[in-house]
C-alpha cells in the first residue's frame, strides 16, 4: 500500500470518527436544554435519586399550572456533593434548581440566590419552625424545604399486643407493656424482648443523629454552641453512655450497624423496636414478616421535651443559572403542591398542612408521630457550619464506633472536642 493510499484511508477513518463524534454530541437522553437558555420554560432540577419521586408529582402539576417543563438530573447521594462543588465552583451550572441536603446548605450558601418571596407569613407558619430557621442564612431564605423527615419509634405491634408478653412484662417490670414514652421504658422493653434469637432494639454505631437526638432532649445544643465546641459537656456524655448501654439489648457488631442494616434487621423481624426515619414505615416490603404488624410513636422526650434531628432537603436556585424566573416558578410550585410528595413511594412532604391532611388516612400512621417529633420543643437542625459533614465523617462516627465497641466515653469525647476544634480553626 502506498503512503498516499494509507493517508487517504486514514483520512476516511478520521472523517468517519469525526462524524460519529459529532453525532454523539447529542446523547440518548434526548435534547434537553442545559441551563443557560435564558427565558425558556424548561428547568433542569438536580436531585438525589431517592428524592426524585417526591418531586415528580410536583413537576407534572407545575407543567399544567405554570407551563414549566422539568427535566430531572438524578444522582446518587454519595456523588452529589462532589458534583455540586464542581459546578458551583466553576460558575457554569447544568441545572436551574438543586435539591440540597440540609447538611450542605452552609457549604453552598454563597452559590445560591435568595428566595425570600416564597417565604410569606403564611408559608412560615406552615413549615416546621426548625426548618424555617435553618432555611434562613444571613437574613435571607435560600432554600425551600421540599420534604422533611425525622426519626420516630417503630415497634412490633403484634409483640406488644400479645397477651403473654403483656402479662410477663407486667410481672417483671410492674407496668403495662406499651409503646415507650420514656427512655427508661425503652430500655426495659429492649431488655424484655432480647431473647430467643431476637433483640429489643438496635444500636447504630455507623450514624450520629440518634445519639445527637438524646443530646437535644437533654436540653444541650449538639456539638457546637455558636463557635464553642461543647461535645464534652455532661449532656453529651450522659447521652453517649445511655446510647452505648442499649448495646446489650441489640445485635452484636453495633459499630458497623448503619441505617440500611438497622432497617433490614427490623424488616426481617429481628428487632422489636427501632428508632428510624419515618419514611421507613411506608417502605416495609409487603412480603416482610412484620408487614402490617408495625406501630409508630413519636421520638421519646428527655428533660427538654421531644427532640429529634430533622432530615429536610431544600430546593435552591443557583446564582449561576440564567433561567431564574422559571426556576423560581418551579420552587413556588413545589410549595403550592407540596402534598404531591406524599403520594410518591417515599411519602414525604414539608408543609405541616400536607402532613395533617394525610395523618388520619390508612397507611399514613407514621405522620402523627412525625409531626409531633418535628414540632418537638427540643427538635433542632444540625449546626450551620460548612465543616459539619467533615465533622460527622471524621470525628463523630469514628468516635461512636469506638464507644459502642467499649471505649471510655469521657476520653473519647475529650479527644473528639480537640479534633473538632482543629477542624474549625
Amino acid at each position, binding site marked *: *500500500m*502506498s*503512503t498516499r*493510499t*494509507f*493517508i487517504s484511508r486514514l483520512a476516511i*477513518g478520521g472523517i468517519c*470518527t469525526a462524524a*460519529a*463524534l459529532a453525532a*454523539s*454530541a*447529542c*446523547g*440518548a*437522553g*434526548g435534547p*434537553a436544554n*442545559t441551563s443557560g437558555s435564558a427565558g425558556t420554560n424548561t428547568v*433542569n432540577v438536580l436531585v*438525589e*435519586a*431517592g*428524592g426524585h419521586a417526591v418531586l415528580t408529582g410536583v413537576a407534572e402539576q407545575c407543567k399544567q399550572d405554570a407551563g414549566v417543563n422539568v*427535566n430531572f*438530573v*438524578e*444522582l*446518587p*447521594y*454519595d*456523588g452529589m456533593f*462532589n*458534583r455540586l*462543588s*464542581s*459546578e458551583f*465552583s*466553576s460558575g*457554569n451550572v*447544568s*441545572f436551574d434548581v438543586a435539591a440540597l*441536603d440540609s447538611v450542605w446548605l452552609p457549604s453552598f450558601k454563597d452559590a445560591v440566590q435568595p428566595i425570600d418571596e416564597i417565604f410569606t407569613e403564611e408559608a412560615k407558619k406552615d413549615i416546621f419552625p426548625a426548618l424555617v430557621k435553618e432555611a434562613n442564612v444571613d437574613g435571607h431564605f435560600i432554600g425551600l424545604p421540599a420534604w422533611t423527615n425525622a426519626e420516630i419509634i417503630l415497634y412490633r405491634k403484634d409483640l406488644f399486643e400479645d397477651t403473654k408478653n403483656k402479662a410477663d412484662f407486667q410481672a417483671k417490670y410492674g407496668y403495662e407493656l406499651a409503646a415507650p414514652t420514656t427512655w427508661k421504658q425503652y430500655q426495659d422493653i429492649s431488655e424484655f424482648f432480647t431473647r430467643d434469637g431476637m433483640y429489643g432494639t438496635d444500636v447504630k454505631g455507623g450514624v450520629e443523629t440518634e445519639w445527637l437526638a438524646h443530646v437535644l432532649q437533654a436540653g444541650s445544643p449538639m456539638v457546637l454552641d455558636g463557635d464553642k465546641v461543647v461535645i464534652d459537656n455532661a449532656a453529651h456524655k450522659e447521652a453517649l453512655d445511655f446510647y452505648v448501654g442499649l448495646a446489650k439489648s441489640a445485635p452484636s457488631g453495633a459499630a458497623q450497624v448503619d441505617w*440500611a442494616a438497622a*432497617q*433490614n*434487621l427490623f*424488616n*426481617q423481624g*429481628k428487632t422489636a423496636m427501632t428508632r428510624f426515619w419515618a*419514611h*421507613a414505615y411506608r*417502605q416495609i*416490603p*409487603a*412480603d*416482610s*414478616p412484620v408487614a402490617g404488624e408495625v406501630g409508630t410513636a413519636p421520638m421519646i422526650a428527655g428533660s427538654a421535651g421531644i427532640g429529634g434531628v430533622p*432530615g429536610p432537603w431544600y430546593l435552591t436556585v443557583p446564582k449561576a443559572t440564567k433561567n431564574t424566573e422559571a426556576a423560581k416558578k418551579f420552587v413556588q410550585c413545589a410549595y403550592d403542591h407540596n402534598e404531591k410528595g406524599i403520594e410518591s413511594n*417515599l411519602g414525604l412532604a414539608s408543609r405541616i398542612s400536607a402532613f395533617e391532611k394525610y395523618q388520619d388516612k390508612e397507611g399514613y400512621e407514621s405522620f402523627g408521630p412525625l409531626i409531633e417529633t418535628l414540632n418537638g420543643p427540643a427538635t433542632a437542625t444540625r449546626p450551620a457550619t460548612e465543616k459539619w459533614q467533615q465533622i460527622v465523617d471524621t470525628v463523630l462516627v469514628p468516635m461512636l464506633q469506638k464507644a459502642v465497641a467499649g471505649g471510655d466515653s469521657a476520653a473519647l469525647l475529650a479527644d473528639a472536642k480537640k479534633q473538632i476544634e482543629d477542624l474549625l480553626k
Partner: protein
Amino acid sequence: MRVAERIKHDGGTAAKAAKAPSAPAAVVPPRKRRGVNREGLEAGRRSTRTLLWVLLAAAMVLYGFPFLYLLFTSFKTPIDTIAVPPTILPREWTLENYTSALGRNGVLASFINSIQTAVISTVLSLVLAVPAAYGITRYKTLSGRIFIMAALVTRMVPPVAIGIPLASMMGSVGLSDTPIALSIAHTTISLPLSIWLMSSFFEAVPKDLEEAATVDGCSRLGALWRVVIPVVSGGIAVTAIFAFLASWNEFLFALLMTAIRSQTTPVVIANFQTQFGLDWGSMTALAAVYSIPVILLTLLLQRKIVAGMTLGAVKG
C-alpha cells in the same frame, strides 16, 4: 551410534544405564526400576494436576462467586435480598427486579450512552495509542522515552483531581453533558495504558519483518498497515478490551460530567442506593444486564485476547 539411538528413543534412561554398567542388577533390576519411576512420575503428575485443578477451582470460585451472588440476588424477592443471614439462592425466583429496573425511566438511554461513550473512547484510544506506541518503539528517541514515562505518570494522578477541572473545561467549550466530553475524559484514563500495552506488543515484532516488507516494495506506513498491524492484531484486541472496559465501568467522570443527555449506566445503577434505602433487587438486576455486553465481547475476542497476551511472552 546404538546408544545415541536409544537415547533418542527412551529419553536418556538407556544412556544412564550404559554409563553405569557396574550397577548391581540383582538389587534393583533395571526393568523394575524403570517401572517404579514411570509409576512414580505418573502419580506425581496426577497429584500436580489435581492440585492445579483445585487451585483453578478455588480461583474460579473467588472470581466467580461475587458475580453469581449478584445474579442470584437479582432473582430474589425484596425481603430475600435483605435476609439476615443472607441466602445464596433465592427462596422464590422472580423476574420482578428486572421488570422494575428495566422499566425505570432513562435506563435504555443510559445503555445507549454507555455503548456510545465506550466505543468512541476505545476508538480514540487506539487511534492515538497505536501510532504513538509504534513511534516510541521503532525510533527509540529520548523524547519518546520521556513521553512514555510521562504517560505513566498521568496514571498516578487520582481521577478526582482531574475530574473536576476537566468537567469545568468541557462546560466552558460547550460540551457539557455530551457523550463526546465523557469519551474524551475516559480516553485520558485508557490512553496511557493503551500506549504501554501497544509498546510491548510492537517490541515483540521483529524489525526484520518490516524490512522484508520494505524490500518487497512497501512504504514504511504500508509495512505498518500490511505487516505489523496484522501481527499485533491480538495485542490491539487486548488493548481495545482494556480501553472499552475502562470506559464501560467508569463512574467518577460520568458522575461529574453527565446529566440528562449522556448519563451512563454506572450512574443509574448507583442511583438505586438512595438516602432513604437501597433497592438491592433492581440494582443487581441492572448490574447483571449491564455485564452481558462485556461478557459477550470478551467471548467474541477470546482467541485474539489469548494470542495477544502471549505475544509479548515469546519476545525473549
